[in-house]
């Protein structure tokens, strides 16, 4: 596991596990700014991460639907200029609360890792 993560890190790519763990926080953060649809969310993720985060684009939708089931995001269908039906997602008040917790968790994790790496620099 660690070897795999280190290999991915050395190759300049993030591991699937790390991407999976951060997906909820990333999606909620993107939706905080504006309501958005699947394709736009993926483009935003690619742009922000500089292409570091890449996954099967079709698998983003089940993640969005899971978040919707949990009540963290809400969705509505709209007809775009092109005439295509688009499902727009926006963050709910529950999602906002969840994002605060996620931010705290990631900060804590960041502090812990930074602390460990400062004490044991050989791990970096």
């Amino acid at each position, binding site marked *: 596991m660690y070897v795999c993560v280190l290999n991915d890190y050395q190759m300049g790519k993030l591991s699937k596990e790390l991407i999976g763990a951060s997906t909820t926080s990333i999606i909620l953060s993107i939706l905080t700014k504006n309501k958005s649809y699947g394709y736009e969310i993926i483009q935003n993720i690619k742009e922000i991460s500089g292409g570091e985060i890449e996954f099967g*684009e079709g*698998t983003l939708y089940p993640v969005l639907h899971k978040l919707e089931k949990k009540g963290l995001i809400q969705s509505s269908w709209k007809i775009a200029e092109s005439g295509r039906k688009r499902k727009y997602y926006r963050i709910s008040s529950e999602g906002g609360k969840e994002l605060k917790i996620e931010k705290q968790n990631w900060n804590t994790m960041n502090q812990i890792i930074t602390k460990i790496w400062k004490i044991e620099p050989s791990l970096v």
Partner: protein
Amino acid sequence: MENRAEFSLKSNIQNWKSILTKKNNLTKSNIIELENHLLDLIDDLESKGLSKEESFLIAKKRIGKTDDICLEFDKVNNGFSFVNKAIPYLKGALICVLFIILSKLFSVKSLFFSQNSNINITIIFVILFVFALISIFSIIYFNSKYGKQIINKLCNVNVLVTLIITSSVITYRLRGQIVLPRIDITQIGNPITNYFAMEFNFEIYKILSGFILMTTSLIFFWRHKKYNKISTSYDDYKSRL
């Protein structure tokens, strides 16, 4: 050449969609969402100078393998997958019940007409048979003319349940108005003493199982419809008109 490429793109998208539809894990709205994503990707790649075929192949690859997509969607749509798989079996059972009830209705109707008019029962049977044949052929004709819409609509659970209930009510009402030939079973040495009570019990079981089958089918049908519902924002739709 250009038209041929466009046609090919449409049929390829259609094939990709039909594979997703066959998998039972994705709702109609899921497929529309994925299709729009694919189209957005194709537009984006085409604007970068790629051909339609290249754009389609890359976009399809970026969306991911259909098996992977279905596996992920199955985790979210587990209720829908079960309903989607069960509906064809329920439809089959309902069609079978409808066939039995319609044949009963035909025989009761024939007896009713023969008792209430001077026409021979054989002629009534022939007339009803011709009527049934004309109905079947007209359904096949209109279906081939307007696509598969008519048979699909006729095989909808709510249509089948309505037809079963209506046919049953007509059959029972007609049965009350005709004199059925009765057999005295005591004369043929029937060992069952309480035959009519037994027949009555079987009738109750039949009605009860029919009721359970129809209720289950209707619940599944409405759940299936609810899963596939796409509620488009009315204001947006209105502003586009």
